[in-house]
């Protein structure tokens, strides 16, 4: 099938061009619409990738694995931009953002999209690294955009911890190159992933091991795995909510994607240390840790940020376990988590705007005062807590049952962590959505479409997964070994 345009180029070029345009264009209406349009076009281009993929080059590659992520990323990017349009309008009205910063915000949004798409499509581990770092730096700037003390502090923390992560990931990348060097010879080939994976069996296992440790810690910082998570809750809490949605829904995935690529590399080499146990350990640690952290949260966005850590832990655990079932579940969980968490942040953003605060103690009885938002949040939390018939239940079902049959002890820890987190989420939800109304109760000027589109997708997926998608996921799961 031939397309009238080159989708790969489009996926990268549209955000890049849009970023350039948005820097110069004035006016909120125009820019926010352009922002939506650009993300929509990117999404459409990404969709077309499903039908026609380019031949992998030295820099770019589209295969089953990253195609899943690209479509997901561009889709959530699109819906978030729709949400962002209504969210930012309110921020402008209340004066939290000035038009200058708004311009900057939209441009940065597109740069972020570009960086993430690039990271996903990179066939070159160096390019991938560069793209992820670009995405990190962009989000650092956006986290600090409100310029309050808290925002700056969060951005600073993110920046410093992120920089160390960047450095560690680079060292890991260099080590992979060094491992490849004797086999593939010097030059570009030693950084091209398709080449690496084809010949990884001959690489020096010890070097690969060290490399993986560095990559795990470097990219793991971006994924938000405990104990490398520290930047994540604050960055989520203090940045604009659309950015929180993108961070939780996408950037964490992108970082995890990078980790997966290297996991495949290691899995090919028979003598290298198995990456599974490392990931399982870190996943469980993150899950249990984040679950407990959920209890003492007072800030609603920070709470859901910890929930993201929890879910990243589950996903990492699933991929660490490996096998067709667990991998499938991991992929599904990742997709569902992206959709759900961003939907939750959409709701949370509007709630915080209505209430004028992010303090959980100042919210109450939302289902009474703002039924749509309130029930949206309830549905989102129900989904994120892994209750059926929503999609996350399916993935958790697969993860738990497949693990219990193989490693009962691990499954028990997993279940324990899930239950602890569940308790915390609903404890807070009880206060926010039910009980006597507290705080301002004005109606939200919000676009509920993105939130409910996401939730509807999650709901649908929990009941019915279309066979092509399943086949696709299964292919990828096989790829992940």
């Amino acid at each position, binding site marked *: 099938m031939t397309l009238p345009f080159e989708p790969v180029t489009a996926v990268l070029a549209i955000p890049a061009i849009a970023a350039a345009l948005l820097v110069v264009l004035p006016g909120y209406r125009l820019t926010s619409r352009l922002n939506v349009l650009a993300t929509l076009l990117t999404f459409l281009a990404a969709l077309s990738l499903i039908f026609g993929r380019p031949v992998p080059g030295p820099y770019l590659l589209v295969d089953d694995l990253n195609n899943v992520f690209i479509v997901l990323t561009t889709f959530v990017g699109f819906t978030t931009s729709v949400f962002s349009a209504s969210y930012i309008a309110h921020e402008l009205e209340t004066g939290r953002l000035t038009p200058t910063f708004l311009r900057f915000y939209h441009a940065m949004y597109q740069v972020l999209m570009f960086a993430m798409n690039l990271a996903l499509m990179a066939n070159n581990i160096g390019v991938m690294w560069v793209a992820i770092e670009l995405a990190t730096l962009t989000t650092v700037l956006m986290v600090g955009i409100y310029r309050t003390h808290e925002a700056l502090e*969060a951005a600073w923390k993110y*920046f*410093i911890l992120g*920089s160390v992560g960047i450095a560690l990931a680079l060292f890991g990348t260099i080590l992979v190159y060094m491992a490849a060097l*004797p086999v593939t010879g*010097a030059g570009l080939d*030693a950084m091209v992933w398709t080449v690496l994976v084809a010949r990884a069996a001959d690489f020096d296992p010890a070097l690969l091991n060290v490399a993986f440790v560095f990559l795990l810690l470097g990219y793991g910082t971006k994924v938000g795995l405990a104990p490398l998570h520290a930047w994540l809750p*604050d960055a989520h809490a203090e940045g604009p909510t659309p950015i929180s949605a993108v961070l939780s829904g996408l950037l964490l995935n992108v970082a995890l994607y990078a980790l997966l690529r290297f996991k495949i590399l290691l899995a090919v080499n028979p003598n290298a240390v198995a990456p599974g146990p490392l990931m399982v350990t870190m996943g469980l640690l993150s899950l249990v840790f984040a679950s407990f952290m959920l209890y003492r949260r*007072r800030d609603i966005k920070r709470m859901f940020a910890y929930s993201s850590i929890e879910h990243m832990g589950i996903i990492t655990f699933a991929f660490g376990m490996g096998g067709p079932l667990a991998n499938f579940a991991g992929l599904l969980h990742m997709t569902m988590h992206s959709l759900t968490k961003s939907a939750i942040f959409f709701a949370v953003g509007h709630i915080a705007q209505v209430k004028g605060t992010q303090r959980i103690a100042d919210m109450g009885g939302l289902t009474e005062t703002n039924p749509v938002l309130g029930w949206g949040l309830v549905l989102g939390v129900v989904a994120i807590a892994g209750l059926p018939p929503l999609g996350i239940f399916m993935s958790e079902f697969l993860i738990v049952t497949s693990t219990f049959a193989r490693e009962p002890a691990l499954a028990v820890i997993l279940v324990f962590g899930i239950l602890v987190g569940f308790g915390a989420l609903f404890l807070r939800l009880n206060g926010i959505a039910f009980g006597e109304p507290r705080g301002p109760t004005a109606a939200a000027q919000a676009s509920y479409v993105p939130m409910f589109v996401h939730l509807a997708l999650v709901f649908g997926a929990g009941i019915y997964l279309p066979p092509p998608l399943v086949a696709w996921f299964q292919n990828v799961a096989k790829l992940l070994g």
Partner: protein
Amino acid sequence: MGELSYDVAHLLAGSLVLVSFMQLYQDRLYALLNIFALHALVLTLSVAWQAYVQEAPHLYVTAGIALVFKAIVIPVALHRIIVKLGIHREIETVVGVGPTMLLGMGLVALSMVVMLRVTTDADPLARQDLAFALSVVLLGLLVMVTRRNAVSQVVGFMSLENGLVLAATGAKGMPLVVEISVAFSILIAFIVIGIFLFRIRERFDSVDIQTLDRFRGERR
């Protein structure tokens, strides 16, 4: 590649580790900055030598950046920040210098052990190089972790990054090395500017002395 080139590279990389150790030992800010300038200088020499040995002219650019930016611009800038912000000249350490040194020894030993497991049929130069680079990285991190002072933490981060550059240039024919070093320089510039802008006098932890402990995410 001859014996000599190996020996010289070995020597330069080894001295980089040595200078990292010297950083651990410092308890005065100015002295630390001077030592860091030395660190950058040794790196420059090492990178230049690799450029010569590998016959890779683009590495000279990296060496140039290291020399101009890290050995001169940054130390001078930090110097001025110290004066301007009135930062204490003495470095507060978390653990004493003695234990830190011991820890550093342990880290170097660790990186040697880890790297020596690499099979011998790999390039011996690369192996040695990586062991030293790993040591430098770990020592840089150690500086960041054991110093309370923002400037010394920046210095720690920069020496960590020097280790990366050492590793990258030691890897024969690695693409994007120059770009990476440029990117890192920008990153460091950001950090330095950030310190200046946010008036971080004592440590990374807060953007303003008034808010030093007020806000840690949730305490409000």
